[in-house]
């Protein structure tokens, strides 16, 4: 049963988001894929349109809203470009062209808009991605909160897509670096905590996925954005019908991020990253992958766990730092800092 009105929890990327998307979108549309590619049903990070043998166009779209618009480590422009690249990267595609749609509020400072667009452009330039079109609208004051950017990414995919449903028992789970920094930076900014040294990790993870492809044995790649590590691992477990075990001791978390999470009562494993990937590989490739990642821009990469077994009731288990076992649950509800 659904609540009668949209709440912020419906957009928090956790349990409620999955529920409402299923109710209002996936159940409603009839034609959900094209030419046997990946479509709406898969609810993966990007869709594909096959254009030949072993070749597809990959497409993704995402709207970006963030408060504050400028945060330690980036701004909404950098976030939009990065997020779009990452959504293509985790399906195994090379981004080639973007289109963007900007909706901005009347009275918004042009200088800020310029900075935001410059940041967006800088990311595209670095990865040689073309901006081939877009849309620009202004809304009357108070009808949009500052600026909303929608970004469509088009990529080229050679071979099979990296689907969340590809994980198999025995596979190892690698994370490219400390998780939750983006979420921590945003929450700190929203709460007015200025003494925090944590910055958003906002950056393309494409180089990590390229390394993983080169090393081999690659099964799944995923960026733990909204809902954090908990959400990402639960999605993989559910779509692959497997149980997963991860080891708390191995999961890299910056001290600053952990301190903030504990102070606010937010589970650190549900904090978003915008510049880390979860990469699932055949067991025999994991050490080589971590070694390669560490010398190629991801010095804190770690093997954090493994896919244990096939399961009809897929679950993610966390071996805690004191050796206990608990479930790493899908984050539920809005991420509100605990107060008392």
């Amino acid at each position, binding site marked *: 049963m659904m609540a009668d009105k949209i709440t912020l929890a419906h957009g928090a990327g956790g349990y409620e988001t999955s529920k409402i998307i299923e109710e209002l979108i996936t159940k409603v549309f009839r034609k959900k894929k094209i030419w046997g590619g990946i479509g709406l049903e898969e609810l993966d990070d990007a869709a594909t349109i096959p254009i030949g043998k072993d070749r597809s166009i990959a497409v993704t779209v995402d709207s970006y809203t963030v408060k504050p618009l400028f945060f330690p480590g980036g701004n909404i422009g950098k976030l939009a470009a990065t997020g779009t690249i990452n959504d293509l990267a985790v399906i195994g595609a090379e981004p080639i062209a973007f289109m963007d749609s900007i909706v901005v509020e009347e009275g918004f400072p042009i200088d800020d808009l310029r900075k935001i667009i410059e940041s967006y452009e800088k990311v595209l330039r670095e990865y040689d991605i073309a901006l081939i079109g877009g849309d620009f609208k202004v809304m009357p004051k108070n009808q949009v909160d500052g600026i909303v950017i929608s970004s469509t990414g088009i990529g080229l995919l050679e071979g099979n897509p990296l689907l969340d449903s590809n994980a198999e028992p025995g596979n190892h789970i690698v994370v490219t670096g400390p998780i939750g920094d983006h979420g921590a930076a945003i929450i700190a900014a929203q709460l007015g905590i*200025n003494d925090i040294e944590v910055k958003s990790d906002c950056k393309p993870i494409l180089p990590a996925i390229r390394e993983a492809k080169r090393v081999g044995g690659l099964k799944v790649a995923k960026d733990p954005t909204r809902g954090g590590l908990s959400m990402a691992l639960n999605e993989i477990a559910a779509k692959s019908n497997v149980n997963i075990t991860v080891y708390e001791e191995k999961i890299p978390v910056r*001290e600053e991020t952990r301190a903030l999470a504990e*102070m606010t009562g937010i*589970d650190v494993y549900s904090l978003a990253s915008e510049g880390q990937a979860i990469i699932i590989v055949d067991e025999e490739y994991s050490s080589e992958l971590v070694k390669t990642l560490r010398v190629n821009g991801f010095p804190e990469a770690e093997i954090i766990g493994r896919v244990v077994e096939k399961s009809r009731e897929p679950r993610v288990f*966390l071996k805690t730092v004191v*050796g*206990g076992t608990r479930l790493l649950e899908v984050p539920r509800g809005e991420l509100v800092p605990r*107060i*008392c």
Partner: protein
Amino acid sequence: MNLSQEYVKRRKKLLEILSKYRDPELAKKIVEKIHGVAERISEKRILIMSFCGTHEHTVTYYGIRSLMPSKIDLVAGPGCPVCVTPARIIDTSIKLALEEDVIILTYGDMYKVPGSKLSLAQAKGLGARVEVVYGFNDAVKKARERAREDHVFIGVGFETTMPTVASYIYSNRMPDNLYVLPAYRLTPPITKYMLKLKEISINGIILPGHVSTIIGVESWLFLEGIVPSVIAGFEPIDVLMAILMILRQIARGEARVENEYHRVVRFKGNEKARKIISEVFDIVDADWRGIGVVPESGAVFKEKYSKYNALERYDVKVDNAVDIRPGCRCTDVVLGLAKPTDCPLFLKACRPERPYGPCMVSSEGTCHIWAKYGGYIASEKEG
């Protein structure tokens, strides 16, 4: 203290916490000892109750139940202030907001707890002015910023939340447009009450850490000779140590009050805070949500400070408040008589995103903790 300062303090402490109180090797050693001592105890079942919701959080978050010998049952107790605040208090706040047009100031945990019918969050949708505050200091600040508006702070919590309010009143620093709706509850009386319950036989109690920093070890001495008790901190090593200390007492046939949390808790507690509390508050019989009246377990302002009591300022009456809605087993969960999984509504009609009963709302509520961190895994293993 503002959030930035709190963060800096937290960060500084974290390194020490990680190396001392979350040390995997140390944890392993304590767990081994727990198994060893448990074997020497002849009882087939040992029930250890942790008073605090925060202890239950530690137990579940670190999977401590899964490390216990099968004869040890770790049960959560009544230490969730938001869960035990009567529905009447929420109903009254809503009425104050809607009929008297005051601004209600509340802790975030309280905001979503259902009253008889509505929560404050739902009342806000109907036009009630409700704002979440980080604590009483924050409430005072808001009231001062809006000198022409009347504000009511919902005064919930145990001995830990009382000193701040008491100190504003005692030192005559209360803004004259701020009132308190008092619903303070005291921890030793409910502990006494729990021990008299026929339905549950408690073999050991993990006593509250934060509360004890205020009331001190001495306030718990009435438990000596009755039940093995240990005041504990909130890190996993603290809780494991407390369990071990309780088991050792059981093995030796003792029932003492020990203090594991000596890095913070003193024998006499915080004497200044205790003095101010006793200057400002009178102890009275008080009702706990779903449980009923527990003797001498609540606190209200003394006669000379009654002008700060929202119930004196406004003439609001709430009748027929409903503490526990049909089907909800929150009372049993709070008293340790049932596990969340014993409730037919758990994770079905009652979920963190749509709580039906109070124990599913607060971060200290047992049902909420189990739902969020899979506390039911360990209980499933038991069979």
